[in-house]
């Protein structure tokens, strides 16, 4: 892989304060422009790993590099990361526009510049008509798009997404998946994505990492050799089905591993 590494995780492990081991010896490298997805049974540490990469949680062992440097380097131009949560996490008391502008307000970005970026981001996720609405007035899919717009205003280079569309119905989810891919190619984003859905993982990713639980570790890597831009048609091709079958089998093995560990 010739592209430079955006994230390097070397032998990272995590033990929670209560003694539970969540992650064991994770080695993971995500290169510039890649779309890497973590998939695995509930409680396998996918979200924990993502939070560690986001700097929201410290690893108990091992080390991490962001763009070849420590966490202090994150945030500089060309090295911005943004975390998209499982829930939209919008402020219920603020109108959509203020919600989307929050990261810029916190970073004291000038008013004109902030307004320009917010308008552009709202436009991009097709929510311009709703900028005066409160979050509760929007559907689940729209709230999630707002959450993505809030990530876009920071002009991130790396997106960390923790099951962002997990709570949505399948039609909305498929539509948002396609929109996300469009955004990624437009802005040459690098993405580390967490999902429960095999279909979503295959449709989006360049690489899928299958995790097993107790403690969480990576058991399999599946490369999806399908060029971008990917069309909806991809979902009904035999290749798609084969990838899904391969992942499904890997997940079954991961679950079996967990049961064996429990026995």
């Amino acid at each position, binding site marked *: 892989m010739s592209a430079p590494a955006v994230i390097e995780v070397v032998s990272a492990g995590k033990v929670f304060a209560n003694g539970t081991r969540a992650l064991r010896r994770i080695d993971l490298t995500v290169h510039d422009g890649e779309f890497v997805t973590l998939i695995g049974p509930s409680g396998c540490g996918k979200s924990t790993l993502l939070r560690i990469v986001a700097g929201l949680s410290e690893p108990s062992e091992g080390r991490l590099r962001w763009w070849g440097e420590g966490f202090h380097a994150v945030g500089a131009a060309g090295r911005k990361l943004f*975390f998209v949560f499982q829930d939209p996490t919008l402020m219920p008391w603020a109108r959509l526009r203020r919600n989307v502008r929050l990261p810029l307000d916190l970073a004291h970005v000038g008013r004109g510049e902030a307004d320009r970026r917010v308008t552009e981001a709202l436009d991009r996720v097709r929510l311009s008509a709703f900028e005066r609405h409160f979050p509760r007035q929007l559907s689940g899919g729209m709230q999630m798009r707002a959450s993505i717009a809030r990530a876009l205003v920071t002009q991130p280079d790396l997106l960390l997404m923790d099951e962002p569309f997990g709570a949505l119905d399948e039609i909305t989810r498929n539509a948002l998946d396609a929109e996300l891919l469009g955004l990624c190619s437009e802005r040459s984003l690098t993405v580390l994505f967490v999902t429960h859905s095999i279909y979503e993982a295959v449709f989006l990713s360049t690489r899928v990492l299958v995790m097993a639980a107790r403690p969480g570790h990576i058991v399999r890597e599946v490369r999806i050799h399908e060029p971008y831009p990917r069309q909806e048609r991809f979902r009904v091709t035999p290749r798609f089905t084969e990838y899904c079958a391969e992942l499904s089998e890997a997940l079954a093995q991961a679950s079996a591993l967990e049961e064996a560990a429990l026995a």
Partner: protein
Amino acid sequence: MTERAADGARIVMPILVGALFLVAWHMLVVSFDVPRYIVPSPLLVAQTLVEDWPLLAQSLWVTLKVTLSALVLAVTCGTAVAFLFVQSRWIEHSFFPYAVLLQVTPIVAIAPLVIIWVKDTETALILCASIVAIFPVISNTTLGLRSIDPGLADLFRMNRATRLQTLVRLRVPSALPYFFGGLRISSGLALIGAVVAEFVAGTGGSGAGLAYQILLAGLQVDIPRLFAALLLITVAGVLLFLAMVFLSKLALGRWHESELAKP
């Protein structure tokens, strides 16, 4: 249409119940020939209210002044204490028991001391009433400032928000519904505190509040006036409560579940 009918019923029904009660009261007093120094008829109470209005209005004004000043004092100090508490768990753990102490000590027991210590009677009354009213503000606001959505907390942390930014943009708005819940309770308590303190102080003359009018009317067996003063206290309490409901609606009406129209 049915919604409007339900809204109308919500106003009409309690009024109807009140009217029936007054009629029943009047009938009972008249038919059993109850003497006016035991229970006066509602008509007599209304008549007394009109005749003694100059005296009663002045007392009402005194009591209201004490109540409102005490409420403002309680809200100001209570909020300040709550802000202090959320700065660190140590501060909260060290001082919270003393806030509880204020809450559980009967004001009747402390009022004589406060009245001895503080020269100016009105100030003493305000102090007593605010001691009664302060606890709900402290406990609710502290709870509110702590009750922030963990996702939003992560979002602020990830955007490297300062302590002040998190306080102003996240903690304070999150605390508003709790604060207003406390304010409703405190407004009633401030009035009760003012009346109890007046009873203990027994201030007469131009500075006489409604409690003193009740005390005096009781001694003079002027029961209609006692009832009239009692009625004024009740009405003042209800109006105060409604004012707090209005304030709460003004602040939360557009976004908080508690103030939104039921579906």
